């Protein structure tokens, strides 16, 4: 389906990343937003609160992030595309109901504009240290989808992509950005609505009485609408395809395996990498979000000196592009992860490299983007 013209501000704009994300959500057809103010994400809520009444969307400032996450799940079951945005402390509070979203298989989008942590940390300065929390922050075993935009333009585009994936895979999708992208103002081209492809919610074509919230033997079931005669039950308890609780190990295996398979069996579809000069590279710099821009001068300098450096930008961070990293590890001398933390996604890269090449982490505690000099030195170390 194409985007609804009334939702799309086609044209060239100067927007910061947060506003661009808000516009992406609106273009994607998001009609319910619940959130709680937190720096550096608040501008998304502010923009939405202004824009939504004009397009018939619903904005509610909730009492906290626990409520925000719960409300967007409720609205999604109610039939609206929904989203919330937050930053570190709020992300922590949302984790329980993020898990509920995974368990109920509820499409929605959650944006984390990362700042420095732990705790209140650096409210106004960037970080990328919630990446493992994004992967594992709620309890239990599950898979996630997380995207990382490197610019306001990508903030717009990936928000739409996040909504599409959340509908396609019937699960919450994370947009993991950071303070730097959130507050940087750049040109954002919003295409005409007919160029914006949207994936709409799949509802059952079965009649009430014949349909269950999860169909037997189906990996991703169409949803059931609330209040239209489908007297279905859903629960965060382990359940069978009918949505009713079943408390034993067999039901647990079936339920959890399927939740994980939705992502695991579709890693190729979900993986989105942008590669540059990787073919002949002896060293590849891997990064995501703002860090993938900051590394570029360092890579250029190293290449000028004749060092064969390639770059991989991970647009999708979770699921991790395991296959590609394994492949590269067999070819290159070293893989370098550059991220604003002390090596969270690095751990995953190192695991996949499995000792077949050297791995390096170029990281720091957050608060500022990398000094390209530190990336350059890591490249030099790697080719020594």
């Amino acid at each position, binding site marked *: 389906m194409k985007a609804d013209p009334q939702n799309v501000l086609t044209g060239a704009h100067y927007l910061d990343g947060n506003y661009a994300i808000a516009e992406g959500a609106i273009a994607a057809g998001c009609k319910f937003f619940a959130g709680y103010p937190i720096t550096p994400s608040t501008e998304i809520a502010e923009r939405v609160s202004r824009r939504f009444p004009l397009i018939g969307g619903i904005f509610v400032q909730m009492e906290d992030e626990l409520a925000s996450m*719960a409300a967007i799940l409720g609205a999604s079951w109610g039939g609206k595309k929904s989203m919330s945005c937050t930053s570190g402390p709020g992300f922590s509070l949302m984790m329980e109901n993020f898990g509920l979203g995974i368990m109920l298989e509820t499409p929605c989008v959650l944006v984390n504009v990362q700042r420095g942590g732990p705790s209140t940390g650096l409210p106004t300065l960037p970080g990328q240290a919630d990446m493992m929390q994004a992967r594992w922050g709620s309890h239990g075993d599950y898979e996630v989808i997380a995207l990382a935009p490197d610019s306001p333009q990508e903030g717009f585009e990936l928000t739409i992509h996040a909504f599409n994936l959340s509908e396609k895979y019937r699960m919450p999708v994370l947009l993991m950005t950071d303070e730097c992208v959130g507050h940087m103002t750049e040109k954002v081209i919003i295409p005409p609505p007919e160029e914006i492809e949207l994936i709409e919610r799949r509802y059952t074509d079965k009649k009430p009485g014949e349909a269950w919230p999860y169909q037997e033997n189906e990996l991703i079931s169409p949803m059931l609408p609330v*209040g239209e005669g489908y007297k279905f*039950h859903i629960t965060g308890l382990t359940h069978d395809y009918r949505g009713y609780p079943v408390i034993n190990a067999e039901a647990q295996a079936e339920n959890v395996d399927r939740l994980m398979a939705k992502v695991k069996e579709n890693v190729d579809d979900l993986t989105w990498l942008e590669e540059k000069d990787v073919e002949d590279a002896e060293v590849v710099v891997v990064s995501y979000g703002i860090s993938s821009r900051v590394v570029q001068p360092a890579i250029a300098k190293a290449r000028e000196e004749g060092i064969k450096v390639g770059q991989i930008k991970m647009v999708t961070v979770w699921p991790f592009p395991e296959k590609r990293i394994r492949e590269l590890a067999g070819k290159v001398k070293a893989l370098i992860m550059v991220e604003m933390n002390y090596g969270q996604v690095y751990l995953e890269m190192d695991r996949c490299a499995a000792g077949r090449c050297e791995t390096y982490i170029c990281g720091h505690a957050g608060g500022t983007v990398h000094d390209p000099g530190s990336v350059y030195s890591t490249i030099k170390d790697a080719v020594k």
Partner: protein
Amino acid sequence: MFDYLTYVREGNFPHIWCSGCGHGIVLKSFIRAIDKLGIHRDEAVMVSGIGCSSRTAGYVDINTLHTTHGRAIAFATGVKFANPKLHVIVVTGDGDATAIGGNHYIHAARRNIDLTVLIYNNYIYGMTGGQVSPTTPRGARASTSPFGNIEPPFNISGLASAAGASFVARGDVYHAQKLEKLITQAIQKKGFSVVEVLSPCPTAYGRRNRMASPVTLMEWLRDNCIPVKKYEKMSEEERSGKIRTGVLIDIEKPEFTEEYRKLVDSMQVRG
């Protein structure tokens, strides 16, 4: 004879409740209320949290959404906004609504969003085996107040009234006919409406507090729940230990989803 079975998911029985638990009486009163109201079963959606009380959702044959501990009201806020025409009924316990979910409870009341909240107040955390709750009376024993509770309890109804709810009632499972009426009125009310239901828990509360027999607990409700009108005529002395039941608050005030709709409409007019 009223046919309850058409309204329940028989396949999910036996239910998890202990014999003598009051929660089943609330379920039956709710069923009679929606039957009397003639709410087509597609128009009512139940959202519940976690606890023995919240498990009600699994047994009623309407659209039921069983969420997380304390968050039913927040979840229901999204459901209601997405479908303002639906009757959204929240089923919760004293712990679910006023401890872990206390913030959502008062803020939903303040916003006066059109939800009907049935709080099964059994003075205890039933599901987890009888820990002290925000409504456990002073001196009562719980597994985590083995020497008697030293904290003062919340007044659940008072909390909603003070926070801005437009309808607040208190009922009990001994007076089941009256309870049905209160639930009916609460569902009919456009605005945040609460029915606090005193629903005994013989297993986790009664046994520890010399009321192990469900009959004793029912007699206690019979003797101590006093209708508002009668209560008002009683002296301070007579009121001691008695619980006021009936409609406590019933006022008209702007409802949240309706106010939001008006905002949207005014923007369309302005263009």
